[in-house]
Structures are given as C-alpha cells and as structure tokens.
C-alpha cells in the first residue's frame, strides 16, 4: 500500500522542457504544483562546469546524461512477424533522464513547422489525390493550424532568446531568412549566430545553385539576452559541445537557463527528483485521474493525488505510462483500431561528407555551436512539386557541423584503409579540411499502419511491468525521399569545392544501433477523432479529461524539422487552454 502525500492541485510527471513550461504557467495561475522527475536534479554551473563538461568520452561515448537501460528500456523489432529484443545500449536515440530532460543536452535547433505540415493529410490529398499516398501510410491532420500555434511559437522563441534571421514577418518575405517559413508575428529576439568558414561556403554554393540559404535558427545565443522571466543568458562561445553535453555558459536555452531559477522561487511549486512514476491512477469510473503512484530511490511507493495530471515525460515514456495505466485503447495494427501506440515515427537522416584539399582549405572546424549552420528549405514538406518524384515528405538540408570533437571527427575519404599508418596519415591530412555536416539532411518520417508501440509479451521491467515494444522500419516512401534529398545535398557539397564525397543514404532496414536523432514522435497523438487520436487539439486525453499529455508523442507524423520548438509551443498552447478554458469548467474541451 503506497504512502499517501497531501493532495495538490496539479501533479506533473517528468520535468524537462514541457513540464517546466507547464509548471511555470500553472503556478502563475495560483495553483499548487508538484513535479515528479525520475532522474536527478541538475543545475548549470554545478553539473555542467566548463572545467570538465567538454569530455567527449564521458558524455558522448559513455552516455553520461542519459537514462541507464538497466533502469528502463524498450524492446525493438523491425517487423510484426519478428520477436523483439531488449535494447541494452542506446543507439538510434538517447532517452533523456533528469531535471531539464532533453533540454539539457540538445543542440538547440529552433525550427517552426510549415503551415502545410499541420494539415498534411488534407493538403497532400488536395494537391496530389488520395491515390498518390502509399496505401499503408496513416498520416493525419493535427487538429490545429499554424496560425493558431503562432503565438505559442513566438512565446517559446522569446523565452529561449532564439537567434535567427526571420524569413517571413506577417506575410512579408525578408531578405536572408527562410522564405518558406510560415508568417511570424515579429523578428527573432536576437540576430543569427555568426557562421564559420565551411558553413559560409555552403551558403555561397547553395546561392550559386539558385537556392535561398539562411542561418539555422538557434537556441545558442549570438549575444547576451534577458528573457521575459528576467533570466539572463550569455553569448555562445562557439565551443562546439552542445549535443550530448550541458551548457555551463548560460548560452544554450534549456529549462535550467530559461525557467528554473525563476520557477523555484515560487512557494507554490515543489519538485521531487529521483522518483519514478509507475502509474497514473484512475477513479472507479476510469474517466478521471486521481493522481499518480511513484517509487523513490529507496524503493518506497508513494501516492500523489491531484486534480489535474500533466504527463510531460519524453515521448516514449508518455506512451508507456498510458499503456501501463490502461488509459486509452491500445492500438492494434491488425484491426487498425485503438489509439495508444498509433503513428509512432522517427526522422529520416542522412549526410554527405566532403573532403577538401588541405592546402587550400582550413575550416577550423572547432568553432561551432549545436545549431550553427547554413541551410536551405527548398526540399522540405511540400515546398516543391512531388508529382514527378513519386514520394511525399522532405526535409531541410545544410552544413550544420557542430564541432570537431576528436573521437567522432576522424573522417577519412572513401578507400582509405581502416587502420594503420595510412589511416593515421589520412586522419591528420583531413581533420581540418573535411565538411562533416552530421545530420546534414533532416528528412520527414511519415506514419504507417505497422509502425507502432505496444507492450512486449515477453520482457518485463524491474517493477514487473511489460517493457514497451517498438516496431519500426523504413518504408519505400522515406527511402525515395532520402535518396532524392541526399543527392541534392551532395551537389551543393561538391559545388563548395570538395574533391571527394562520402555519400551516406538512409537505407532499410531501420537500424536501432546507430545514432540518428532523439526525435521520436507519436504514440499518443493529437487529432480531431477519438477513434484515431489519443488527445484532442489541446493535448487533453479524450478518455480522461483531467489528463493532458505534452511532448512529441502528440505529433501525428514527423515533418522534416527538429521537433523541440513545436514541442515547447504545444506546451504553451495546452497551458493557455487549461488557464483560459479548462479551469473555469473542468471537463472535455472538445466535444466528439
């Protein structure tokens, strides 16, 4: 029998970006809020000090900041007719753990989705006809529009101090920005970061090829900034240790730099770290959450009751907790019924490395930030006519090289021996003259009927609960999309003056062992129909109205951009709905 804690107005499960945003909004509303976080408390100067944070072995190779699979993992298979096996070392993605969540160790790319992304099914069907889409593709509209979300995008961008060049202010196209972006209400809070040599060269080459390159919008700041909460951020030093690492310079947007010092001063906020929520509790009707049960690091079980439950863990954990709590009908791909686990997606990443003459080019690749880069958006979403190509979707591409950390930066041209004196010489010859864009092609990943999440029949976690099973493969549509985009990208790298190219397409089968991105989405998606979505347009559970589920788990499918800005904007959007509608009249915000 768990010990019962005094009841609160709100309990927040998981304390990364969305949990912190919601906690700040609801404490502003005067509610008594407690957040429960599985991992440890983390603060910028004490946990990410510049004196040792730049340690690639510790943080990148050994995954210092991430969840230990011993604590919780997933099983994986490519196809429904295979037996899934547990993931014992993280590969394709890195589940966050601890206060700040993925907001601690992200690169801080700050992309808005395209207006057409939010009405994807309608848009593609109208333009190309329903038969143009693959038969098993299950893409949906989001239930909200870009224009509705715009004020929330703006709030998150200003919270973070985002550095960028606007491409479209109130419908007026701006020189130097992304001409394809949806209209924004105002310019970025800070100007774009300065671009290093190879990034500038990419921009020039793209321009000569007729594209409209622009600096990638970044949460690594070009200059000092004071955000709307009065929190101060410093200018980025271009150290090149963003993704996998925390930032101690107060120059990368994170919950630690943009919300927490302000939030923790509030008397109506409390946080419990090192406590893992194991269940959302429901009353007898099954239609109302009464709170959560969690286990602390001593193995003690506690019950925290609350009027309102905010599920704001990482996407996969949100879905898993819904499944373990019997909230919403689990998705069944055979009958195509149920909602929890439906439309699980990732990202379709690939890259092209360019090897340049080291007598002519010294890129000094150490100068970088997580979201540095010059990009083009001509091949994203439906910015180009897909008719002749036979696929849908797309992505941005760019020279977005984030540093020259020694363990991962030993690139050599194709044909070089894999070891020995010749390999060493090639590493030395190419270290400073290679363009290594990392996720240079950042493609969309659309949803399919047989790509989903459910509970594994064989493997259990330390509490005896079934592990969640990932069934995921790469489909023909995404393979075609990636081939097309990667070839376009290679043309630009070649035009920069590269002597040799190493082109790396994304191919099937989907590989769970090699890192792509941590952009996992779906499984508890938002929409307009309770039969095909777990949440309504306000991220409110159709089944349990006093439960809101935040994060990329709400994405019906994944566009060709990084998800965090939309994740944060949706948290503001849901918070607005709770503050302006739900609290006045607790209940379903949308009739269906």
């Amino acid at each position, binding site marked *: 029998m768990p010990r019962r804690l005094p009841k609160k107005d709100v309990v927040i499960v998981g304390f990364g970006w969305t949990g912190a945003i919601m906690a700040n909004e609801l404490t502003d509303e005067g509610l008594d809020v407690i957040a429960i976080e599985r991992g440890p408390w983390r603060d910028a*100067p*004490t946990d990410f000090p510049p004196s040792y944070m730049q340690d690639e072995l510790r943080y990148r190779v050994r995954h210092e900041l991430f969840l230990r699979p011993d604590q919780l993992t997933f099983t994986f298979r490519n196809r429904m007719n295979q037996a899934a096996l547990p993931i014992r070392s993280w590969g394709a993605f890195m589940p966050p753990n601890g206060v700040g969540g993925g907001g601690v160790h992200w690169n801080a790319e700050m992309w808005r989705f395209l207006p057409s992304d939010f009405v994807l099914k309608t848009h593609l069907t109208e333009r190309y006809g329903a038969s143009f889409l693959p038969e098993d593709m299950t893409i949906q509209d989001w239930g909200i529009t870009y224009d509705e979300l715009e004020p929330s995008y703006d709030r998150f961008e200003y919270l973070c101090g985002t550095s960028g060049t606007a491409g479209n202010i109130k419908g007026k196209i701006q020189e130097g920005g992304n001409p394809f972006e949806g209209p924004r209400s105002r310019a970025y809070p800070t100007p774009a970061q300065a671009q290093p040599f190879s990034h500038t060269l990419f921009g020039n080459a793209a321009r000569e090829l007729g594209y409209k390159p622009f600096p990638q919008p970044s949460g690594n700041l070009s200059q*000092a900034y004071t955000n709307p909460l009065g929190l101060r951020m410093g200018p980025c030093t271009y150290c090149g240790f963003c993704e996998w690492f925390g930032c101690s310079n107060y120059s990368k947007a994170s919950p630690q730099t943009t919300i927490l*010092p*302000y939030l923790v001063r509030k008397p109506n906020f409390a946080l419990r770290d090192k406590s893992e929520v194991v269940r959302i509790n429901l009353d007898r009707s099954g239609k109302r959450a009464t709170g959560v049960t969690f286990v602390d690091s001593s193995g003690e079980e506690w019950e925290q009751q609350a009027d309102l439950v905010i599920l704001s863990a990482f996407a996969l954990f949100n879905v898993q907790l819904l499944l373990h709590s019997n909230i919403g009908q689990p998705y069944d791909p055979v009958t195509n019924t149920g909602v929890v686990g439906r439309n699980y997606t990732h990202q379709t990443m690939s890259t092209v490395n360019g090897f340049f003459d080291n007598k002519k080019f010294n890129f000094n690749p150490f100068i970088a930030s997580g979201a540095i880069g010059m990009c083009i958006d001509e091949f994203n979403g439906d910015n180009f006519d897909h008719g002749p190509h036979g696929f849908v979707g797309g992505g941005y591409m760019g020279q977005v090289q984030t540093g020259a950390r020694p363990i991962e930066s030993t690139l050599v041209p194709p044909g070089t021996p894999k070891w020995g004196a010749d390999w060493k010489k090639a590493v030395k010859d190419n270290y400073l003259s290679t363009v290594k864009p990392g996720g240079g092609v950042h493609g969309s990943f659309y949803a399919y009927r047989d790509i989903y999440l459910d509970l594994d029949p064989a493997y259990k976690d330390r509490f005896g609960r079934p592990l969640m099973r990932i069934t995921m493969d790469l489909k023909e549509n995404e393979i075609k999309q990636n081939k097309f985009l990667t070839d376009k990208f290679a043309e630009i790298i070649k035009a920069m003056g590269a002597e040799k190219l190493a082109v790396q397409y994304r191919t099937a089968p989907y590989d769970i062992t090699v890192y792509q991105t941590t952009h996992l989405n779906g499984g508890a998606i938002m929409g307009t129909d309770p039969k095909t979505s777990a949440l309504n347009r306000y991220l409110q559970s159709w089944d349990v109205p006093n439960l809101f589920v935040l994060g990329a788990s709400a994405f019906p499918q994944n566009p060709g951009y990084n998800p965090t800005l939309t994740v944060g904007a949706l948290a503001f959007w849901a918070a607005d709905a709770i503050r302006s509608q739900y609290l006045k009249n607790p209940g379903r915000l949308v009739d269906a």
Partner: protein
Amino acid sequence: MRRKRYRAGFLGGVAILSLAAMSSARADDSDPQEFTQIERGRYLAITSDCVSCHTVAGAKPFAGGRAIETPFGYITAPNITPDLETGIGAWSDEAFDAAVRRGIRPNGARLYPAMPYNAYAKMSRDDVQAIRAYLNSVEPARNAVVANTLPFPFNIRATMRIWNSLYFKEGEFKPDPTKSAVWNRGAFLVDGPAHCGACHTPKTFLGGDRLDQYLQGSYLQGWSAPDITNDRRVGLGEWTVEDVATYLKSGHNTITAATGPMAEAVSLSTSHMTDEDTQAIATYLKSLPGKDSGDKPLPADTGTMTAGAAIYRDQCSACHGIEGRGVPGLFPSVANSSMVRSKDPTTAIRIVLRGARSVGTSKEPTAPGMPSYGWQLENGQVAAVLNYIRNSWGGAAPAIEAGDVNRVRSDTASRPD
C-alpha cells in the same frame, strides 16, 4: 494625517485589544495594535539583519541556535522570539534596550560583540523599542539555546568589560549638519542598523574595530570582505551611486555579483530595503575617501603572469571574456572587480578553488554560479591566474604566492560553501 487615521483604527479595536492583552503575560508589552510602530520595527529588523544570525536555515525565524564563527570560537545566537521561557518574552523593554544598545544582559552580564551592539548603539531608544514591538508580534518558538560556547578565557563574560572600555562607545547617531539628509541617512544605516563595519572594517587582535581603516576591508569566516570606501582600485571608486544601490537591491550590477556572506546579507536584508535607503547607503559609502596603496602592476613578462594569461584564456575567458569584462548582470567583470584586486586575496582565491553561487533575488532571479577549479588547478596555477587577473586591464595588486592559495585551500576544506 496618517497618524490620526491609525489612532482612529486603534480606538475601533479596543474590545479585541483588551482580549489580546489578557491573553498576553508579557511584563512590558508593546501594543500589538500599534501598526505604525510594529511596521517601523519590522523594517529596522530588516536593515539590522537580525534574522540572519538568529535563525537556523529552515527553522522558525528568530528562534536562534545558529552558530556564529568568531576568531575566538563559536557563539550561538539566542532565541529572540517572544517565547516566555526560552525567548525574550519575559524581558522588560529596558532589558531589551540594554542588550541591543549596550551589550548588557538582563542579569548584568556582558554580551559578546558578535552581537553588533556597538553599531546598534547608533539607533535611538524608539528605534529599538520598535524592533521589540515587531519581535513581540512574531510566532513564539520554544527553543532553548546555550549561547556561550567559547573556549577559556573568552568564555568569561566579564572580560568584555575590558573590551567595552577599549572599543565600545555609547551614543546615538548624531547627524552632520554640513551634510545632506541623504548622506546622514546613509551614515546612520551603515554605522547603525546595517552594521557594515562588522564585516568590512578590519579588527584588532582583540576583535575591536580599527577605526583608522574604517570600512577598508576585513576577513571573517573564511572570506575576505572587500574595501567599501570610494577607493578607486580596491573599493567602490569605479562604481556609480546607482551601481552600489543596484547591487544592494538586486545582488548584482554591471560589474559584480554578491556571493558568500554578502549574498545572505542581500537576500535577507539589503534587497528588502527601500530604494531611498539603498541610495542613501550608496551616497554615504561613495563619500568615503579611499587609501592609496600605491601598488604597481606586476611586470607582464614574469613567469607567473605568462602562465596566468594562458590559464585565464583557457579556463576563464569563456564567461569572463578575453578582456575580462564578463557579461553585465550575468558574469562579473574581473577587469573592474575591486574584490579581485583586494590586498587580502582570500575571497578571490576561495572562489577560484571552490566556485561560488551568486544570490538570486526577485529583481535578478538568475543566480548564476561559478564552478570550482580547485580539483583541477594546483596552488601555483591558481596564484598565477589570479596574479594575471589582478594585474591586467589597468589593475595592480601584490603578487599571490602558492602558499597563500594553500592556506585558503586548507582553511576552506572543512567549511561549507
């Protein structure tokens, strides 16, 4: 006009008041209905920072029990809530005044000057009675405190008679008619309730103020408190009055940030002062002439300066900048920091070795911190980087040796941060 309104309120509340009086057994009670006096006392208690010493963090306010480190040993601050048995509820007003302004306990014994009665003496009897009235209004806490935990011979309170004859001067603050009202208010606050000299004026070997070095920086509890006169190099000379006031209100200004004991003083006291009072303190401090030590910068080509420059570039410049100017309101300007150049480098060494957390206030909630470098830099390297910082960008300060760093390292090893 205002007084009249309160009096009307007072008359209206007679019935309730008499009930309250019946339930109170205080010997010499202030009137709990006297809002004006209690509110004045509350504010004076803030400017006097009573809560700091008389409260254990997380426990009931003013319930005492906090151990105060002095050069002679630890003194535990007593319970000053109105609890009749373990607090000061049974004290007469006379006894309270004698303790606060003359350092004499109700039984005639002497207080130790860890209680800054030598500063509080500058307050008037009315001021002190207002503080009493306020303290009578707080929740009584039962908490018996053994105050005197000093070793022999300092545990003999009678020795304080000699100390008092040497260092204690009774007498309320007397305004200087040649100076402005703002200046006089500042002087009163600095020398009286705010007792700035307790930390910032150097002490004799007996712990008395060295008045010839008034507010020119001192050492206590593992920290060196900087010079707060208008000295251009090691004091407030490069700060404007506004810079000083902003620092007191928010714990931060464009040059520096409050850490250590000053962070607590800002958090509990100065950030709650009125804008007029922080301006007054700033005006007064800026009027104090500094000393001129005549230090010349170390030559840039010495080994320690060369090594220091390299370490600075590698370890410090990401936040504090190549030119040492930091980011206003976020990272202190080590190029302009008088603390960095202080003759006593204890705090500067300590911050490099152990890191420091600046104070968070409602005006400046960020509370940025500096990480510790003590595990990474050895004593000679800490000395080198500080020699570089202290003697660059127009600064000049005596050289620090590895032995100085070692002293601070040993001294701070067992202290809390």
